[in-house]
């Protein structure tokens, strides 16, 4: 039946095993891509004609910002599956996403501020992207806070899952309202992200970093998922068998 893969995904021992086998296949390409991207971004790419070498921050800022959104979406998707089908593994995946997403959102904020100082002359500019990023950071904090606040694990899973789903509905509304607000109070100079003349040597390292970060996320998620699954299933017999053999 077409649904068997879905049911197998719901089985913790299966997921534990498969995640363990898959994670190196994502981890090593991620390492190679990120190292290549770093070399390409720092050495091969020519300086931007307007921003000079300062533009090289894009190679860490853009992938971090991409991660912050992608991880949140993944988390909300897993949470929704967990809510609807009461799938424990999905809740474990959502729980595994949060710290990864929060830490990369933090990186996106810091690199954004570091980029802002030479470009805008100030570390913090209330530009819509950075502001949305900051709000996203608070959404992550709220999610983790709620999860930590509820003692009963099942209830914590379901309540935080609901919050993640509510959050994902709200993210576009928040982003839209922040953009709208920014268009009213816009400062004269806004970040000029190398729109003109992005050469291939500039673009390729960026693509490598974006793909590398994505693969890294999958690898991290798989490892964390295994940990979450083990913790949740610590009293069932398969966990012992999996570890002692």
């Amino acid at each position, binding site marked *: 039946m077409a649904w068997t893969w879905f049911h197998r995904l719901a089985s913790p021992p299966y997921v534990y095993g498969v995640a363990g086998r898959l994670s190196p296949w994502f981890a090593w390409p991620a390492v190679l891509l990120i190292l290549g991207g770093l070399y390409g971004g720092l050495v091969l790419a020519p300086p931007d004609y307007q921003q000079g070498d300062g533009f090289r921050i894009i190679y860490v800022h853009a992938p971090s910002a991409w991660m912050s959104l992608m991880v949140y979406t993944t988390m909300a998707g897993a949470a929704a599956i967990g809510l609807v089908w009461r799938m424990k593994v999905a809740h474990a995946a959502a729980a595994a996403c949060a710290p990864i997403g929060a830490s990369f959102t933090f990186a996106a904020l810091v690199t954004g501020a570091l980029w802002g100082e030479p470009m805008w002359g100030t570390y913090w500019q209330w530009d819509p992207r950075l502001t949305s990023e900051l709000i996203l950071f608070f959404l992550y904090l709220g999610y983790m806070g709620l999860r930590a606040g*509820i003692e009963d694990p099942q209830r914590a899973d379901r*309540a935080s899952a609901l919050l993640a789903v509510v959050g994902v509905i709200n993210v576009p509304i928040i982003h839209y309202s922040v953009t709208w607000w920014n268009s009213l109070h816009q400062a004269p100079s806004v970040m000029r992200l190398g729109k003109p003349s992005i050469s291939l040597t500039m673009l390729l390292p960026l693509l490598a970093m974006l793909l590398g970060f994505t693969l890294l996320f999958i690898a991290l998620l798989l490892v964390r998922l295994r940990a979450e699954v083990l913790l949740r299933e610590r009293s069932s017999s398969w966990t012992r068998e999996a570890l002692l053999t």
Partner: protein
Amino acid sequence: MSHGDVEVAALTPPIVARSSATSALGAAALALERDLLLAFRHPSQLVQPLAFFAMVTLLFPLALSPEPARLREVAPGVLWTAALLASLLALEFLFRDDAHDGTLEQYALSGQSLTTLLFAKIAAHWVLTGVPLTLMAPLAALSLGASPSALPGIFAAVLIGSVTLSLIGSIGAALTLGIKRSGALLSLLTLPLALPVLIFGARATQLAMSGGPVVAPLELLGALAVLGTTLAPLAAAAAVRISLE
């Protein structure tokens, strides 16, 4: 079973026929009535958020300067920040007592739609906190240097915006049920979701004070209220069910 059955059976009502069941609307009306009655038995709970709102608007002239031009400039922000915080303060009372004494449990088991019953509760909460806030906001605006011609716009903005604040707040209040010392967490969950209301509300107030057209931000506030009305009670009902599990 026992010999006394025949005589006592006459005293208890027969098992109820479906036809005498309360309609969904009737049940919602009763829930609303009960919450209003309860609030009027405890008026101090109503006054506190209002006093808080008045205090915050008083703080700004003292902290900044009593100079009217300066105050007029910050008035929209002050007004909406104060309104947001005051409505947040009132949120803690929304479900807490009902969760404590088993009312929510009975609502969830009543065979009525929990979403509808919670909508009635949120409506009561808005009547008790949002409406007084709406009545007070023009006064606060006057004290911050708004001209009387700006008051209708401000009144309309707070009227519509406070509906959405109550609705959004209900989700956070329901999610944090059963958590001790949930105050800070409740703000962390609710404030990011409430940002669009703050942005559009402050913009409407600003336009009203400068004599501009307030229709566009009011429409956006209205759209948020409609969206909140359709989605927030559903999410709150799901959160209440989770808290009862």
